């Protein structure tokens, strides 16, 4: 089955990004496909290349990058939301791309299920 994912909150402050990641990993392990993960609202902060969590904590941004790298998941950051919050090509982590909200609608059309994770 084809899933698409929407992440509405930034890393660390809310569990949404963790739950979305663990759901995604499980879905891939079960043989489902995750076409796209769309980052909206503060969710765009998941793509900051500048985050540096403590050594003993998970690295949320790196986890996403690895997911894109190993499974070809399309990580899309909403451009309008990103501009408001200071995410640009300058500080965009590897594996993410910045694009428009149309990519969210498209994901909703193409996937069998759209899963929303937020606050």
């Amino acid at each position, binding site marked *: 089955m084809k899933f698409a994912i*929407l992440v509405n909150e930034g890393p660390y402050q809310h569990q949404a990004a963790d739950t979305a990641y663990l759901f995604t990993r499980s879905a891939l392990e079960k043989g489902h496909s995750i076409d796209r993960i769309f980052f909206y*609202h503060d969710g765009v902060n998941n793509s900051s290349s500048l985050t540096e969590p403590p050594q003993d904590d998970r690295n949320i941004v790196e986890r996403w990058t690895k997911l894109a790298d190993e499974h070809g998941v399309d990580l899309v950051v909403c451009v*309008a939301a990103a501009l408001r919050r200071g995410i640009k090509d300058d500080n965009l982590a590897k594996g993410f791309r910045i694009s428009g*909200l*149309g990519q*969210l*609608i498209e994901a*909703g*059309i193409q996937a069998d299920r*759209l899963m929303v994770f937020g606050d």
Partner: protein
Amino acid sequence: MSDEMMDEGGVVKKFMYVNRKAPHGTIYALESLEVVLIAAAFDQDVSLVFVDDGVYQLMKEQKTDGIEVKNFSPTYRALEMYDIEKLYVEKESLDARGLTTDDLLVPVEVMSAAEMADLMAQQDVVLSF
């Protein structure tokens, strides 16, 4: 060509936008509206529902000068021009807040929680923020 379920080459899915939060205290109402406006270009079957504090998004006479943020409420009036015409407000949510449709800045269809539940179950995609 007679099939309403098809547009040029594409599928038409039922998209529902669920608005449950008051405006201005958080950005969800505004950024939800930004998605809806983009969605309009995709010729999908779009419904907007206003439940719980989401009904406050549609209040008339919002004046945001005092808190120095954008007043986006007039945009709800423009939705019709984007062919977004299915706006549903839940009766129980209005009643709990002592509100009626006279308080709202756009014409809406009022439905019960049970009808709202049926409508939700018929969707392909439910977007909540």
